[in-house]
């Protein structure tokens, strides 16, 4: 019996330490240190997609960020949002806006609503891909703040894919509102 408890304790402690270790890498939680950590994760992720071809041309192919990248941003949570917004506004790297919008969704919280709403208010079909991602990231915002943005898209958007995505996100946010499962 005592051995069983020891095993369970070791198991729990190992996983707790691993989880803390992911966030502990940021050191003291000052806005600057969190900003540095977010910037490092963002740039390392995009660097991993960028290669020099044998011809000498530099190419960047979008590849989904690894699960550990997502876990690191989830671990930082809403505290990471200001730094991600700054990257969204100032970084001009290829595929950078896609990564930043996904990172906002992983971080979550009410602070992600204004930048995502701004993206969704832009006009132009070429932005459909980014708007699909922006809608998806809104699922991680408080539903009472995200729903009006999604419902505005449903009223004003003409693109079929975006309307489909907005309807899916609206259903999930309404489900969260009913369940009280707000992140």
């Amino acid at each position, binding site marked *: 019996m005592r051995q069983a408890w020891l095993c369970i304790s070791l198991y729990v402690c190992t996983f707790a330490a691993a989880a803390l270790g992911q966030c502990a890498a940021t050191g003291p939680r000052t806005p600057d240190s969190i900003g540095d950590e977010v910037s490092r994760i963002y740039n390392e992720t995009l660097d991993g997609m960028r290669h020099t071809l044998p011809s000498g041309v530099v190419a960047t192919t979008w590849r989904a960020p690894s699960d550990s990248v997502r876990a690191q941003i989830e671990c930082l949570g809403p505290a990471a949002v200001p730094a991600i917004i700054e990257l969204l506004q100032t970084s001009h790297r290829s595929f950078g806006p896609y990564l930043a919008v996904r990172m906002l969704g992983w971080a979550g919280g009410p602070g992600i609503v204004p930048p995502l709403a701004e993206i969704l208010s832009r006009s132009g079909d070429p932005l*459909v891909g980014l708007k699909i*991602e922006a809608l998806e990231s809104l699922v991680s915002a408080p539903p009472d703040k995200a729903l009006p943005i999604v419902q505005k898209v449903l009223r004003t958007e003409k693109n079929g894919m975006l309307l489909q995505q907005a309807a899916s996100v609206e259903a999930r946010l309404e489900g969260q509102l009913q369940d009280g499962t707000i992140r």
Partner: protein
Amino acid sequence: MQGVGGYCAGQLLPVTAPITVQVPKYFGPTGYDPVSCLCDSGSVGACIEVQYQTLDQAGAAMQASGITPQELVCVSQFDPPCQEGYSQFATPPTTTSTGTFVDTPLGTCFENPKSNVCVNVTQQFQAAFGGQTDPISTLTTRLDCAYGEQNQVYGNPSGFNQTYSYGTLP
């Protein structure tokens, strides 16, 4: 007198219909649209998004939410060509109630290309569902170029293999 499984000898055994468990086996493409790669200034690229329906082992649509599609992307001209492992990539991250998801963006940005340069990209898939991971037979080969893209989806039942082209290919 004791017969089979507690039933008496001579008594008819109940007959039950075989139960078929649906397992995700294919990702069937249902459409595509061009999207912006959002390349940095000085770079050029062509990107698309592809819509998929999850199919079971018989090629029938799975109306199931909660399946997590995962991909392994390789670019033959990169060193190393492949990612370290599978990553979840879909939007939404798990399938909708009708078993659908979107893959976006698909493409490559090229910095200051002198011509319509291209790279060869492959995607392999798997699906995580209910605590287990199932291999997906669907494969894609892409030709990502500065001014166009071709995406061939194959390995699916007939009717679900598609080739999507966009822009100018060499």
